[in-house]
């Protein structure tokens, strides 16, 4: 059981009591993570009011891809797929620890092992959160929450892997591949008549590159914080050995070293570690998430640009048909359909993008405020402990 619920980078989710989703539990089996998806609902479209199913990461990807490939949702921002659980970093460290076991004392080894287990747990919690947010974005969307595949995902109590294979064969990932190689030139090059979309396009393209850069830099910064927290553990372990060596004739130095060592281990490591992980959650995760979300918004723009291109092509085809005097009604039908598709996309796109901006601003505000508050809290904690230590050492 996960003891603590992490607050998500997205807000206003899971508020509608008609469909409440969460991931209360997850198991880590070697490389695979098994999530328990729990649903509580008052909707009659479901068979039961409350139920849970086990799901793997690949099931989430399947769900995301089927939504992307659904034509009807072309005018919506599809919530970004959760990234694959990445235990590479703690696994590598665990491996290095195993290799270096001979060179450290038993106490050092146990301490480092504990720290690594905590890191595993942190990665674990993060991946659960990001998968949960994905589902909650869907459940709180007026259109997507009603999707048939979403319902299957939540309810179907058998293994989804068979469905996943079939789906691949059906769609062949055609549209997804198109979207994946979203041609920014196409988006940029399309002649825009609508001011709103013109502004959005300029903004999103620029913002995406900036947020991508900021995410990368934030990741590096967070990693440095973690390195320092790890250094403090190593230091405290070495100080421990040093204080054990000190002659009992000079208790004072033993005392000082022991105090210093405890301070490093208990306070600095914990607090610096907390600073690192809070910074990661509030800042780095926030940036990472919205980078992916903006990609999803760009995908929407792309689909709309495609629709516009199709409409323009259908116009040309209609003109050609009229000139030739052949298949005119066919061409007229095609053109009408293209226009309709384009208009639908534009209308829903506008709504989606406006909501998106509001959502983004609220999320940034929440996370920046929380991060600042946590930084202050940690620094104050640190200071109290430090001053206490100094008083003790100065013999006051």
């Amino acid at each position, binding site marked *: 059981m996960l003891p603590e619920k992490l607050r998500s980078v997205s807000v206003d989710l899971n508020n509608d009591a008609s469909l409440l989703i969460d991931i209360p539990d997850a198991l880590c089996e070697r490389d695979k993570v098994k999530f328990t998806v729990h649903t509580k609902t008052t909707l009659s479209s479901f068979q039961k009011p409350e139920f849970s199913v086990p799901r793997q990461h690949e099931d989430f990807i399947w769900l995301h891809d089927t939504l992307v490939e659904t034509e009807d949702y072309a005018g919506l921002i599809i919530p970004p797929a959760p990234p694959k659980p990445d235990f590479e970093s703690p696994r590598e460290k665990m491996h290095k620890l195993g290799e270096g076991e001979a060179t450290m004392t038993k106490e050092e080894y146990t301490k480092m092992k504990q720290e690594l287990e905590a890191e595993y747990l942190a990665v674990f919690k993060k991946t659960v959160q990001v998968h949960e947010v994905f589902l909650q974005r869907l459940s709180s969307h007026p259109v997507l929450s009603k999707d048939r595949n979403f319902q299957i995902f939540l309810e179907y109590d058998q293994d989804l892997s068979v469905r996943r294979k079939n789906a691949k064969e059906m769609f062949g990932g055609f549209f997804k591949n198109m979207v994946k190689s979203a041609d920014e030139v196409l988006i940029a090059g399309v002649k825009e008549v609508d001011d709103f979309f013109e502004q959005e396009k300029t903004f999103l393209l620029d913002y995406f590159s900036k947020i991508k850069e900021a995410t990368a830099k934030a990741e590096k910064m967070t990693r*440095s914080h973690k390195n320092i927290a790890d250094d403090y553990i*190593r230091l405290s372990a070495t100080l421990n050995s040093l204080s054990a060596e000190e002659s009992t004739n000079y208790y004072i130095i033993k005392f000082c070293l022991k105090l210093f060592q405890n301070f490093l281990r*208990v306070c600095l490591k914990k607090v610096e570690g907390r600073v690192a992980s809070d910074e990661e959650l509030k800042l780095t995760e926030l940036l990472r998430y919205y980078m992916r979300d903006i990609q999803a918004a760009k995908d929407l723009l792309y689909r709309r640009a495609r629709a516009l291109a199709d409409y323009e092509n259908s116009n040309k085809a209609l003109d050609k048909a009229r000139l030739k005097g052949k298949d005119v009604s066919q061409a007229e039908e095609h053109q009408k359909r293209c226009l309709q598709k384009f208009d639908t996309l534009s209308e829903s796109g506008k709504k989606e993008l406006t909501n998106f901006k509001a959502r983004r601003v609220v999320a940034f*505000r929440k996370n920046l405020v929380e991060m600042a508050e946590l930084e202050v809290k940690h620094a104050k*904690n640190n200071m109290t402990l430090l001053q206490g230590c100094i008083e003790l050492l100065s013999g006051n």
Partner: protein
Amino acid sequence: MSCDAPTHCFIRIIEISLPFCRFFLQIEEEEGGDSFDIHISVSDPEKVGDGMNAYMAYKVTTKTSVALFRQRDFSVKRRFSDFLGLHSKLASKYLHIGYIVPPAPEKSIVGMTKVKVGKEDQSSNEFVERRRSALERYLMRTVKHPILLKDPDVLQFLESSELPRAVNTQALSSAGILRMVNKAAEAVNKMTIKMNESDAWFEEKQQHFENLDAQLRKLHASVECLVCHRKELSVNTAQFAKSAAMLGNSEDHTALSRALSQLAEVEEKIDQLHQDQANADFYLFSELLGDYVRLISAVKGVFDQRMKTWQKWQDSQMLLQKKREAEAKLQFTNKPDKLQQTKDEIKELEGRVQQGERDFEQISKTIRKEVSRFEKDRVKDFKMSIVKYLESLVQTQQQLIKYWEAFLPEAKAIS
């Protein structure tokens, strides 16, 4: 164990440390002892000359009320080789009789060449600062030694405006001296006669310093790692600040844009904090450990000198024994001149044996005193450095609180 309440954390630390608290009184008594009122500072590094013959001149200022000195406040200009020269003189006078002479800072060909060549960049400035600080610590340690303080070479070094240039500083570097000392140690190891250590104190202390050496080296390596990572954090924070500023410029929501720019400013200030903390990590922690690793080599050297002294005494004794045997043999031959010569030699050797024994006892006595003084100083040094280091951390935390509290209203203003 939850660390959310700072008081809980703190109580836990006290619980662990309480058994040691009562021994505080012991050190308080000992601290009230000798206080040499002397303070030396090394400052104002100035480049003299050009090209490869250039050198750095440092101002050495002494402030003291000790009667040995002619004035209370005075300064002189010295260069690095002068310090090496001082150390070599002191080492040659005092090491072999058991005094722990503080080692001089290391030479650095690479570092000095950059300075000579005239590179006015950050790394050569850092090098000069690092050297200046090391020279200051070296002098302070030297004058804190009650015997060394009275030495005429030390007085001359601190007081006289002109100092004869130390020649052949190749051999005079403290590394060179230590090499000589360690050669003595090797010679000792090669001796076939194992010294019968009748005094367990020496064996115990030697083992203690061996262990201490190993631990301090390990600690030093860990701290160097911390300094490196802290510098990395500073660089990464600065880079993030720039990217946050650019993101703020790109953001079209006005209040969020402003908040992001403010975030960038905060992170820039924090970058500076990290740099300052990295300096503290380095000067208060890392350099201290480096100094003590070298000091302990000097301590080990002194123990080896004692072995050498013992060996000398034993050698004289063996020679005396041989001469006595030779004398006994000569009694039965008719060689009065040779007999007399041998008798004279025996007389001389008896004197040498007695001197050898006296030397050995003296050096043993001196080392006991020296080790006790050294350990007391080390304890004070470590304690003071730990406190200073913790205070540097307090400074950082105070600034962090200030910066983030200033940012909070900006973040809350986003709507």
